[in-house]
């Protein structure tokens, strides 16, 4: 017992010393992130997603290898940094997730509406998250270059901008309330300015990401969903027009930014 007591005493002394050595908050957070960067659990989703892409699944027992993500059937590298974009076959502007829903339904025979209604992290939603991680990872290091050649793509960018600035709810929040200026933060989290290119691997160019707080892989749809939750808005539908329009707006603003997705986030 005496042993233990002196150990605690020693601990207290050392703690006093540690205070002197304590770095500033910003330095401390930077140090924490540097320690985390090595070994991103998103890799677990990436390898799972690669397997799912190639695996014959669903009522039609087919793989997704014929899925056209915008660069031709089965082409994965480079596809992520050009999404959302217009697809002639569905006559819609689609982000990666709504596009995957279309492919899973058309090729594999899954019920896209049922997957869209499945809670995040469960069932086919969990598989979709892994697919997103795999497809995003295949464009890591590439620059965002969303096409704006189609009238629908330009329109969605304009609508997305308006959705971004739309203030409502009991707290009067819009996306812009937190994301229209650089150098701001909530608590200790820096907020990217999403009205312009916030930089390589920042903001739009960092998602999907492994969320340390929940230990899960968050896609852009889930990221937006939680933004809207904290905006105190009603619940945005998975792959809803508002979410896709926001993706086009943010993606067009982020043109030229290098994708770091899937990244690791608090």
């Amino acid at each position, binding site marked *: 017992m005496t042993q233990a007591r002196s150990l605690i005493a020693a601990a207290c002394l050392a703690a006093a010393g540690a205070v002197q050595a304590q770095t500033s908050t910003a330095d401390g957070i930077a140090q924490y992130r540097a320690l985390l960067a090595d*070994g991103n659990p998103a890799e*677990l989703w990436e*390898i799972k997603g690669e397997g799912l892409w190639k695996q014959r699944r669903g009522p039609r027992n087919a793989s997704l290898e014929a899925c056209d993500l915008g660069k031709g059937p089965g082409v994965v590298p480079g596809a992520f940094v050009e999404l959302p974009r217009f697809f002639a076959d569905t006559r819609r502007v689609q982000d990666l997730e709504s596009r995957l829903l279309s492919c899973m339904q058309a090729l594999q025979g899954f019920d896209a509406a049922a997957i869209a209604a499945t809670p995040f992290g469960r069932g086919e939603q969990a598989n979709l998250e892994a697919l997103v991680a795999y497809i995003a990872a295949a464009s890591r290091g590439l620059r965002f270059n969303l096409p704006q050649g189609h009238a629908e793509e330009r329109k969605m960018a304009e609508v997305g901008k308006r959705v971004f600035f739309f203030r409502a709810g009991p707290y009067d929040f819009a996306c812009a309330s937190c994301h229209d200026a650089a150098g701001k933060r909530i608590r200790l989290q820096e907020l990217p300015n999403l009205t312009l290119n916030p930089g390589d691997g920042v903001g739009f160019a960092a998602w999907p990401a492994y969320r340390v707080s929940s*230990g899960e892989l968050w896609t852009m749809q889930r990221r937006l969903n939680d933004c809207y939750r904290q905006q105190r808005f009603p619940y945005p539908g998975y792959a809803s027009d508002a979410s896709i329009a926001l993706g086009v707006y943010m993606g067009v603003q982020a043109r030229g930014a290098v994708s770091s997705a899937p990244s690791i986030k608090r």
Partner: protein
Amino acid sequence: MSDPMRIRAQAQGGGAVVRVLMSHEMETGQRKDAAGKTIPAWHITEVSAALNGKTVLTAQWGTAIAKNPFTEFVVKGAKAGDKITVSWVDNRGDKRSDEAVIA
């Protein structure tokens, strides 16, 4: 069924740096679900790493190892082409073993 581990093993200065990511909930047993019921602890208890079949490192883990655990260690005298095996067992008796070749 558990998801596969991600093992990266890189030859470096007369040894190999091994980085392992495991897919596991690592539930603490301290949390409650929406209905207020305690979610039972579910975590990896024992880990073992082997070089070409010979155990080189073992570990025992409690509930305070982070979800989707990451571990890094250095195997002496290992070279490119050698085989690293990592295995774990959890408190429910689930187990998993994955391999990687040192690059």
